[in-house]
Each structure stands twice: as C-alpha cells, then as structure tokens.
C-alpha cells in the first residue's frame, strides 16, 4: 500500500474541510476502501484518509416519530442483529446479514455499504491495469471482454459494471432516505454513475444518517440474495421487496445502479400474492432486460429472485 496520512476526525465539519481539498478520502469500516488502496486500482491516490468512526454519535439505531434512524457509521452486524429491524424492516436486517462475511459485517458500515465502488474485474485489477471508462479512460474492457457478471439492463455512461450493495435494494424497497450534512436524498435517487463513484454525493458531502419510515400497516418486506458462495460473495442478483398498498421491488447487481422494478410492482399492486402473480411479476421485472450473451442467465435468476422475494414478503 502506498503511504498516506491518517486523521481521526472529531466532527463532520472537520471531515468536510478535509474532503474539500480533493486529495482526501473518507474511511469508515474501510472494507472497500482499503482494498482499493492496497490494489492501487484508481488513477488517483489519496494523500490523506480521514476517519469517520472517531466522530462522536455516528453509530446508533433508534426509532423517533415513526422513523427508523441509523447512524452512518453503524455496523452492518448490529443492523442485522437488531430485533426491531428484523421485525419491522425485515428486508434491511436480511440484507445486512447477507453482506460478505461475519468479520466484514463487524467492520463494515451502512453508509459504506451503499457508497462502495462497483465490482468489475477490469475496474478492480491491481495497479490500474485497465484504465477503463469509470476511471476516465476511453474503453469499457468488460463490454468486449468477459462480462458474465455484468449488467443485464445496459450501460450507463458506457460502463456495464454492476452496483454490488446488498443493503441498497432493501433501502430503496423500504422507501428510505439518505441524510447527508446538507440534504436528504431519496434512496432511490442516491445512486449515480460517476468517475469513479457510485453516488450523487458531492466530493465534500458526508452521509450522516439513514432514515426509514415505518412500513405501512400490513406491509411486509423481504430480501433474497443469489451468490455463488453463500459465505462471502457479492450478489449475482439480489432483490428486496416491500408489499402492501404501494409495493416496491428493487433488484441489484443487475445494472450500474440499483434497479427498481416498476413493472413488477404494477403486477402485484392491489392483488393478493400468489405463486402465479409472483411469477408474473418476476417476468415483468426483467421485461426490459437487454442481456449480453454471457449474462442471459442473470435474467432468469433475476426473474426467480423477484418471484421468491415477493412470496417471502407475502
């Protein structure tokens, strides 16, 4: 790993000031960042890494005024184990429990999980071996290379890498908001395709909290993940669903951003969930898929994940 300065922040203001120089990067759990630094995958290397975890009061789970509030630095393991989240915001607890490994869940944070960089073996090859579109280059190497785990819903900005977060679709399905030091962003609108980021955050903007409204009465939620290894892998496809009057269905690892399956939501809206309805919703969810040759299997898996998640939430 190349040398850098490490600063333990004591306030969000201090972090904002540090980030403004464009040479500082933020660390919380560090489970994604450390890998990118060790492997030197990006064009630029930070001169300073500033630590969010030392800012007081960033790690909490509480319910206030019918809203679940989770501090940005709250560990995924704590979210997965919280009885209230398991009961009322089930999809989020399930998603947090399926992130990576127990050790990573103990270190990784909710903010880090949604703000992590995308997974693409070209993007992630050490020493910036492939200077791809997401790094400011001219080529998406995956487009003509091995893209078996890439997008089935086309490219964004010429990139077909997928967003790998497990908690992101759960937050979108649960209608969550991402709170930063300067605004509230609907989770659905939080994700973007940048060079090299995955969010709409400004370079000196800091996530401070996640807020999730209590699910409507009678609504249930569920999260399902399909991965090669059960113990550690990023999803090939995952899916979160919240049923109820205004159902929400969100897939991830199928596109450069989490993919809200509006057509699937329309199928189940106002209907009693059955195997047949769930299957129709699965088919609707992938109606707009444009898979590459190597990713056709992901369409089938996405279809099934939607079906099974709907049934699990019914």
């Amino acid at each position: 790993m190349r040398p850098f300065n490490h600063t333990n922040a004591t306030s969000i203001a201090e972090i904002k000031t540090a980030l403004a120089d464009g040479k500082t990067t933020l660390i919380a759990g560090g489970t994604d960042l450390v890998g990118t630094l060790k492997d030197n995958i990006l064009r630029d290397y930070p001169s300073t890494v500033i630590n969010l975890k030392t800012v007081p009061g960033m790690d909490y789970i509480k319910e206030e005024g019918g809203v679940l509030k989770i501090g940005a630095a709250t560990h995924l393991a704590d979210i997965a184990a919280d009885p209230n989240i398991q009961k009322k915001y089930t999809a989020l607890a399930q998603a947090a429990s399926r992130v990576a490994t127990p050790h990573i869940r103990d270190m990784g944070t909710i903010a880090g999980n949604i703000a992590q960089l995308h997974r693409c073996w070209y993007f992630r090859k050490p020493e910036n071996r492939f200077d791809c579109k997401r790094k400011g280059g001219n080529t998406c190497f995956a487009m003509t290379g091995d893209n078996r785990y890439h997008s089935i819903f086309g490219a964004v900005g010429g990139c077909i890498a997928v967003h790998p977060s497990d908690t992101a679709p759960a937050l979108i399905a649960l209608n969550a908001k991402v709170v930063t030091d300067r605004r509230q962003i609907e989770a659905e609108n939080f994700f973007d395709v940048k060079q090299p980021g995955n969010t709409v955050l400004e370079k000196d903007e800091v996530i401070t909290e996640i807020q999730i409204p209590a699910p409507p009465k009678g609504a249930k939620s569920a999260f399902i993940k399909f991965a090669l290894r059960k113990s550690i892998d990023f999803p090939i496809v995952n899916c979160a669903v919240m049923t109820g009057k205004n159902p929400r269905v969100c897939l991830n690892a199928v596109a450069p951003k989490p993919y809200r399956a509006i057509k699937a939501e329309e199928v189940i809206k106002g209907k009693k969930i059955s195997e047949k309805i769930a299957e129709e919703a699965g088919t609707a969810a992938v109606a707009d898929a444009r898979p590459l040759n190597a990713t056709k299997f992901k369409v089938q898996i996405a279809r099934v994940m939607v079906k099974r998640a709907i049934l699990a939430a019914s």
Partner: protein
Amino acid sequence: MADLAGVNGQREKFRVVGMPNLPGRLSYAMAAGIAKYGADYIVPDMLHAKFLRSPYANARIESIDTARARKIPGVIDILTFEDEDIKNLLEQGEMMSGPLKSILTNRADQEGAEVGAIVIAESEDICDKALRQLDIKWDILPHVVDILEGRRADSPVIRPPAPKSQDTAGPFGMGGGNNPPKKGNVSYSNVNAGDVEAGFKEADHIIEYDLNMPAFSGHIPNPIGSVAWWFQNTYHGEGLNIHVEGVGSPNDPGTIANMYKVPPEKVFQECMLIGGKYCDWGLRKSQLITPLLAKRAGRPVRCVNSRYDQYDFNLNQRFMHIKIGFKKSGLITAIDDFSIADSGVEGSSIFGTTMDQNYGPYFTTRCQNVKQNMDIVDSNRGKMYLSGQHNPMNWDSITLAIHLIAEKLGKDPVEIARINLHGPESQTDPNPVPSFEACIAAAKKMMDWKWHNTGGKRLKDGRMHGASFRYQQCPRHSGMIFNCKLELKNGVVHLDSKGPVVGNYIMEANMMVVAEELGLNYEDIRGRLDSHETYKPWGGGSDGTTASGWALKECANILKKQILEKAVEEANTPSPQGGVMGSKTKPAASPFKGMKPEELDMVDGKIVVKNNPGIGVPLKEAVRSNLFATYSGRPPLSLWNERGKKLDTMNVAMCEVAVDAETGEVEIIRFGVVADTGKIMRRTSLESQIEQVMFFSEGCQLYEDYIYDSKTGVKLSANMFEYKKPTILDHAPVAMELLETRAGNAAYGSNGISHSLANTHLVIAAIYNAIGKWVDPPATPDKVLKALGKA
C-alpha cells in the same frame, strides 16, 4: 499384501498409532499461529525486495532505464536481467529436471511473471514506487490463454524454438515414443496398449463423450518468500555463511548451497515450515534470490510474494474426448482417449500431461485395449510446479464412463465399476479386490445408496436430486530411502528431522510409531527440526506418513534393542553416584541384574520384565546412558508403482446433490467417503485430509475458475473474491468411515490417502444424474441454466 517385511508389521494391539486428537507440539504451533514461516521473519536492519512483474501475458523487455527509480530515497539497488550477478545465478528450469537457467530474464511468459528487474529498498512501499518509475521498453508478443485457440495451425507460436521435449522420459516416466515432431505450439504424446480396434469390434455398445477438466489453483495460504543474510563465524570455518529463512525445500540447504556455491553445512535455516502446499515442491524466485541481494546490499533482505503472485496451477486444464466400447454386461473392451492438455508456461511439470498417460485409471480395469493420444499445447496461462491433489488427473474420464455405461444399461454405476475392476494381482485376475468390496459395502450402508435413473428423483422442496460414485486406489507412490536417527538423551527419546513441514503432520505420525514401538506415550517423544539433520519425513504422497513410519519402526526397534541391552549392562555394573568423591548412599539395586536383554520389554514408559511386567523401572532411571540408533531403508515398493495393474487398498467417494432448476444453483447435500488406508496412522490427519480433498473437489466442480481476458491474456480471477475457493461455511458435510484391512505394505499394513480422493467430476456426475445434462466444471449457475435451456 501387508507389512510382512518389517518388524511388528502384524502388530495387533495399538496404544498410540491410530489414535485421534493427540496433542502434537508441532501441530499445536501450526494451528495456534505460533509457528513461524518465511514471511514472518523480520530481522534487524532488514531491506526489502520486489520483482518487476509483467502486466502482459507474453512479452520481452527490450530495455530498462533504472535512472529515475534509483533516485528515489530509500532505493538501495536495482538489478536487471543484464546484471552479471543475475545472469550467473542459475535455477532449475523445470521441476526436478531440465536445464539450469538464469533466475531472471527479459522474457515474461505469463501475466504476473517476474521479469527484467528486482528492486532492493528500505521498505516494500519504496520498492513499489521504484518499480513504477522504471522506464521499460516492452515488446508485447502474441499470447495463448485459450489452448483450443493455441492448438490451431494458424495460431501464433508463443515459445522460442527448442522447446522442452515431450517425448522423452521424465523423472517419473511419461509419454510414448514415436511421436510426431512438435508443430506450432503443439507437442504430441501417444501411448497405446493392446488392440483398440479389436476391442471396439468386440463391443456391443460404443459411447463417446467429452469432458473438460478445469485448471485448479492450490492457492498456497502462506505467502511464499524468504529472508537471507550472510555472516562470518569462524566456528563454522572459513568464508561467509548464509542464513536463509523461508526456503523450506525438500533438498535444502542443498538447493541454496548449490546455487550460491557454498558447502551445505554453511547454509543455515531456522524455519522449516513452508505452510500448506499440495505436492507443489517448486521453489519460487522470491525464495531463491535473497542471498544474492543480501550479499550485494551487505544487509539482510526479505522478498515475499503477494497473494496475487500465488495462483499457480495445482491442476492444469485438459479437454478430453473419450470413446468407450463395452459389452452388454457393462464390461469395457476398448478405451480411446484423445486429450488436448495445457502445457502451461515453460518449466511446467509433466503431471497432468504425459505423466498421466502412464499413471492413470484405465489400468485398474480389465480392459487392456487402451489408446491415449495427447496434444500438449504451450500456453501463457500459468505454471504447474509439480503435481496436485487430483493426480492422476484423468481419473475422472473413467468415472464418467462408468456412469454413462450404467445409464445406457439401466444399471447401478457401482455394479459397472465392480464388473470392470480387475483383481488384486493383475488385469486378468478374476477375483474381487477385498478392500474395494469392503469400501462399497460400508459406503452403500452409510449413504443409504439407492440408485435412481437420470432425472428420476425430486426432493420435497422441488429440487432435483442426483447422486454419484467414484472409486480410487489408496496409494503411496515413492521409493525413496529414509535415513532415520533416534536418540535417547537423558532418558528422553528424540526424533530430529530436517523437515520441511508443508502443512502436514508427518512428524507427529512418525513420533506415534516410535512411541508405539518403544512402549512410551506419544508426548514422551521429542521432535525437533534442524536443517542440517539428514532425516526428512516425507517421501512424496503418503510415503510421508506410512513409509517413513515403516522406516522409523525399524529404527525404533534398533534403539529398543540397545536400550534393553544397556538396561542390563547398567544393572550389572551400576555407575558410582555422587560425583568424583562418590556417595555414601548406595543406588538401589536394579531388578534387571543378571537378566538377559531378551527377557525385558518396554511398556508404559518403563522397562519391565517380560514374564512379570509388575517388575519395572522407568526408562529414565533404568538407562542413564545416551544412545542413538540409525536406520536407512524403506518398505517394499507400493503396488501403486504398478500403475493400477495391481490393487490393494481402495477408497470410495459418493456425492448427493440438489439442483435448483429455476436458478441453476447446485447444493452438495453431502459427500460420503469410505477409505481403506490399510492402517490408520494419525486419525486426525487422515480425517482432515479427507475433508481437504473433498473441499478441493467441491471447489473445482462448483466455484473455482481461472478466468482470462482473451484480448490481453490477463488473469481476471487472481484474487480471493474472483477465484472462488469455498470457505469453511460453504463446505458440504462429509460423512466418512475409515477401514483398516492392513492390506498395504508400509507401516503395519498402511498405504495412504493422498493423490486419491480429490476429483473433478464426482459432483458433475451427480448433477448429470439429477438433470440429465453434462455441465463442465465449475458447474456455475450460468452453465447449469444453459444446459437446462434457460439461459
């Protein structure tokens, strides 16, 4: 066969050998993280070194300008391929054979290969920085990472002329004669036995099938590397001595001594642990170059590979097309095996290619008409240093044949195997193999084996059920001589060994044998590693535990004879007590006074009177002299050396899978293993080795894959996320039963287990039984769904 040649080979009662969970000091050190490996050595004033590694799959460096890099503070030295010291430092070109060649050249034949330069600096970070500042003029050459493409006549030839010969005998014998000359990237090896055409004419049915054996990474867990420094000490004679940690080669300190032209006794190593490696005895450049760098720098130098640098092959890729003729009974009459195998980069071993042609499974059958043609394709995929757990690597071709014949005839594959397996003595021996029959009976009971036809069973949750079965020999396969030494020092028995310890517990198993033979407890034996000792406990494959155990059994009994003789001698002539002035207290009279050594025995840590074991004296008191015994030898050669044409100890593996036809997900419900290793030496090791091989089998059949970018030849899956080795949380349950027929001819009738249970198609055959489609390993969901017509 049995251990008829060795002393106590027919022993009936065991107190120590075969016991589980004996607390070994060495194994405790390894399991507890106390043990130090090469990368763990940090010494004062130490420098670091890093190789330049090729970003290209096939390239040549035309020139390197080091000027900018040398200006970086902390850079001590940069050696390039043009440096005379580098040119003159020669390493073995091919594992165990092949010409010597310079340790670093300007040619890179795979992405990540050490090439062109090595930097010595005050830290690894500075090394990295300096490597980035090298001005390198590359000549990027065409590459081959798809061996089917590389085999084509119009494929660019990737290797300079004068390739390694593929048609001469290698260190283990290989290949056939009269092969066509190499053409392009392809060498040829043809081995024929019997009359294949006649065999096909004799057949009632002929089937043909393809199978793709996947490449597999051993993925060595301990980062490989070394630390070296030179020192002067007149105690060790004139001239400098080398201290090098982390080499741990079977031949060390010989390898380092030869390379650096110093006597072996002037090479010192403390670390004899090199971590888990499966039959990969190849030394990496990072283990060999540090003495040179340390000499140049005048300070200790450490050079360690990163995890990215450790994706060498433990199994190379092979495409096979098999044609089998068989009778209505299921008896195979002819086998025609055409293979296209990956030769890997230059210097790769012949295991997995020509070696397998003489080493494979076909000769365990009654069929004597076997034709094997192999095209061996040079590639830029990677290097196979020696062998892998899966060896012999074409065993799965016969496994699939058995399943396909069974399907064709509507029979249980176990019965097809039974029909085809020849008897113990030869391919024409009509008798059953007792070990095989015992394994089958136990396995069927353990797994509640009820065979069903392809697609014939669904589980309650709707998934499709599949099952499969496989047999193999329980082998040992070396003929090396073991030079053992046991010492009785101050009443304690010591076993010293030069190691190395490669993630195994051979020393513990050896100590168990010594304890057994000397009537001692296991913890009474002291094991010590010292690179200047002569005894190395392993011999390739299971010779480590069973054949070296046999030699130590002999040695222990030589020592025992000396101990009993000395007990009588000391009883008859007790030494004066109390120092030079003597003592007023008379020593207690020994009960052995006037007895003969043959009237005594060693039981429970004491020397006792055979006819009256109640009369005994603890060893420490009965013998105050220091004694040592040596033995050089080995047990009779294993039947494995008959390469399948004779059979003694066998094993059977079964597998049950559930296939989710909607997602293509395969779950291994359980493995079942019944292994007859003849005699269990160290039960814990045997159980864990079986777990390990089934873990290997699971990984290569469900998850693990070398994925290359076809345009650049770059490995895309050389990290722990993308190269998907299962974790312990993914590992399927393994039911096992261990048999002891005592049919092997190493210690107490043992053979071994290594190189026998790992496989590439047991799970694949079970998937076939579930869905009726062949899926090449690894059977990832994309392939399963494609086979099912859903992708």
